[in-house]
């Protein structure tokens, strides 16, 4: 019977692929993205200015990136990270994105929820009278500098 070398070659190739992928993941500090370390968010350099400006902001002693930009329970947090991680990697690798970078509506919602998570008690009266379109005025509409420092 004719014994094909293909399966052997195939498993070898798959091994190479897996090894290369693992190395790429490690080289790109992929594991860091599971942490809460703000430095990890600037791994790919796009967020350098955001990290720098956060260090000049009033929240920097109290809240890291994930405290404001991701939900706090595990599954939504991982979903948010995956969603944004994918978008960031694709856009940064291909280089086709518009400057300056703006927060997407879905992320703005996540952010607003985190403002209220900590400051809810203080703003409860405002929320009662926020008008017909909640979300029209966000905390950061006025408090633009609290997360990333003053603009000038």
């Amino acid at each position, binding site marked *: 019977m004719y014994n094909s070398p*293909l399966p052997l070659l195939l498993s070898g190739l*798959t091994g190479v692929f897996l090894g290369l992928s693992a190395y790429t993941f490690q080289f*790109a500090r992929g594991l860091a993205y599971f942490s809460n370390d703000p430095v990890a968010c600037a791994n*790919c350099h796009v967020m350098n200015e955001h990290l720098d400006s956060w260090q000049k902001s009033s929240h920097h002693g109290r809240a890291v990136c994930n405290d404001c930009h991701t939900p706090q329970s595990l599954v939504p947090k991982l979903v948010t990270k995956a969603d944004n991680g994918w978008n960031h990697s694709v856009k940064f690798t291909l280089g086709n994105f518009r*400057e*300056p970078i703006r927060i997407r509506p879905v992320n703005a919602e996540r952010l607003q929820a985190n403002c209220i998570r900590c400051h809810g008690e203080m703003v409860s009266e405002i929320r009662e009278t926020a008008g017909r379109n909640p979300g029209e005025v966000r905390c950061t509409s006025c408090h633009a500098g609290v997360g990333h420092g003053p603009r000038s």
Partner: protein
Amino acid sequence: MGSRYRQILLMILVAVATFLVTMLLTNIRERKQEARQTYLPLANITEDTVDAAEWGKNFPRQYDGYRRTVDTERTRYGGSEAFQKLDQDTRLRRIFAGYAFSLDYREDRGHANSLRDQDETERTKKKPQPGSCLHCHASVIPAYRKAGGGDIRAGFEIVSAMPFAEARRLVTHPVTCLDCHDPATMQLRVTRPAFLAGIRAYYKKSQGVENYDPNATATRQQMRSFVCGQCHVEYYFAGDKKLVTYPWAKGLRVEEIEAYYEEIRFSDWKHAETGAALLKAQHPEFEMWSQGIHARSGVACADCHMPYQREGAMKVSDHHVRSPLLNVERACLVCHPFPAKEMMTRAEIIQTRNAKLLARAEDALVALIDEITAARSAGAADSQLAEAWKLQRQAQFRADFVNAENSMGFHAPQEAARILGEAIDYARQGQLAVLRLRAGRSAR
């Protein structure tokens, strides 16, 4: 057989996947390299390297931007195309009658064209000009140093006094890297002798600081405006030596500059129709910007005219210096949280209002010129015209201060409107003065 094809197909898939992962790995590696912002010093850059192409060997991205300043772009009111302002606004021929600007008043182009523009203007070809022009139209510092035997200030005085054609032979390149960057450290620095003298006088007046030296004391953010203020300013040629001088000893506002000129009894030219001794404003961008809200907020020239741009993992300031209206997303949106179209509209509203007010000021000025000219041909003596002349001079300098300033009012909208309001008032006061004169004559 079926399973064999499947295996081959699978193999191709794995191969493609491996190919892509390797591409990604290389890309990540490249980005990591870029993020280190190292540069490869291929060319040896010294204080005498006037050729931007040499600097470009070490800083290809910045050089690439600089080279693009030869572009021809129009904004609604300006841009980098050398259109003839005299044809666009025919009032200017009469306003500048008897002066070189009535021969040729083309819009200035980008940095890389600064020397060519100087060579080509009819103002240089038809009227004798001094070597002073090179102070800002060429990378001139090595020539100054050579002429002054090592002393830049001394060389500046020698070269400025030369006839233009003679001085022109000493320079080869337009405004370039050397003019704003220290070749050893790449730090921003100011080199122009007239700016150093002007800012020293201004700091003495405004802050009481003796011997202010921006290269020693200015912050980096201040330097990001000062390097531009080396040339984008009001100036005059002082004395027989034709020394480029910035009239800032009393302040940067239009009336303070005017008071400076009054004190030294300076005039640029005598108007061919009215006979009044007048002032020409040059391009007081630095002065106008310093009166505006952006200056108050600490925003430098470079923030809007050379905004940062991302190249891979690198942040590079855009050396394609140009109108922010051609680059609204990067120039405005970094600070203003609005869509680009909204920012563009805001800027154009400001500019259109200013253009309308400017047109009124020029109409008023031309009306005054008509009035004085008519009085002269009716036999009014020079001594009788003194008041009207003074008012023409005041109206002329103000209307021109806004017209010559390359932002159509944007750099300081309220200040520009205030200046134009005064211009209109002085021009109409001048007409009243002539009317009174004629009434007095007919009563006699």
